């Protein structure tokens, strides 16, 4: 049995949708459990105060990468069928900037805002409203912006393609980069800036 199970036809659409819903709920639960439903904690990453977000995201990337390539080397996953988005440089750079600014201002990314909304955080409702407005503006201007956004299409690229290294070697390098990053994050966390703590009377 080779995955992706949906693409190889082993799982039908209803079962795939059900799995997606269950995985989504589990993902949301984990996000809240690790504090990613708190906008102050998320925005703290931009001040160098608390780098939990980066650590969580990098850990998730490394874990997924190790499992993906292990499955591939053991013949359990057809890597050619794994969905990859095209690398559109203009879209990635401008999208990243807008996303980063939105995240720094609002303290959420789309996923964490939904998770926070479940815990009845009022700021997350406003954030969700904001990204729907953003979506509408993008959709309304799509013919205009798409010409610019999709002008630098590099195709479906992986780090392995770029560096010309086998997947396994690239995986080891990414593990190394992650560990070095973790080391420096730990070293400088909270030492660059620390927000003043409000007393109970001031809050």
């Amino acid at each position: 049995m080779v995955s992706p199970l949906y693409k190889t036809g082993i799982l039908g659409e209803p079962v795939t949708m059900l799995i997606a819903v269950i995985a989504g709920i589990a993902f949301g639960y984990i996000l809240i459990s690790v504090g990613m439903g708190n906008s102050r904690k998320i925005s703290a990453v931009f001040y160098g105060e608390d780098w939990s977000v980066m650590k969580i995201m990098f850990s998730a990337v490394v874990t997924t990468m190790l499992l993906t390539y292990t499955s591939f080397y053991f013949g359990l996953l057809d890597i050619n069928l794994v969905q990859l988005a095209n690398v559109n440089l203009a879209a990635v750079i401008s999208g990243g900037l807008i996303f980063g600014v939105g995240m720094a201002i609002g303290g959420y990314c789309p996923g964490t805002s939904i998770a926070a909304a479940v815990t009845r955080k009022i700021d997350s409702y406003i954030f969700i409203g904001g990204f729907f407005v953003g979506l509408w503006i993008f959709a309304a201007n799509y013919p205009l912006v798409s010409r610019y956004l999709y002008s630098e299409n590099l195709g479906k690229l992986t780090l392995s393609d770029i560096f010309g290294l086998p997947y396994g070697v690239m995986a080891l390098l990414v593990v190394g980069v992650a560990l070095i990053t973790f080391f420096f994050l730990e070293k400088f966390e909270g030492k660059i800036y620390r927000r003043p703590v409000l007393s109970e009377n001031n809050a």
Partner: protein
Amino acid sequence: MKKSLLTRKTLVIVAVVWGFALAVSGVINGNQALTAPDMKELQDTVMKEKISEHALNCWITNQRSDFLILEFAKTNQCSTRFGNFPGYSCVHEKALNNPKWMRNALQKIDKQLIVFGETAEQSLDATAKFKMHGYAVRMLDRTESLEFTQDPIQTRQPVFKPVQSSQATPVTAPAIVTDAPPSEEVEEEEGC
């Protein structure tokens, strides 16, 4: 605190060891799985579904545009037989083992593929591989040898690049597929 530190150290060691194991797999096998999939069953299906050269000639003569022809060449020359058909492409057989090519070329194909190589074995291997990836694919049975009854009309742009012209050209590195038009219903038409 001590327990937390121990857990962290354990996770770091696990990640590094795991990474090294993957790196060794990568050095030994490149970007190929260590365990090759069993293709026997797929090859049997391919043999049952193969299309004759005569039938394919008829499709081209009838100007059908709901299929693509893909030739895999081992040496540096492609055959010239289907060079005039707009949906014909010639790709080096190494492309079959190139995940980047497979990823970029295959995801947008929504037409039936007719695949063949230089030898019957190569045709079978290539077709079975496409079948494994879930594509509507048939192997061209080249035991017959029929010429075109007329020149096919070039109405569409080729799907694979590099595409061979009507003259034999050297096989170059495989490249990215462009958008394919929407598929049409494929009729099982063996005769003209």
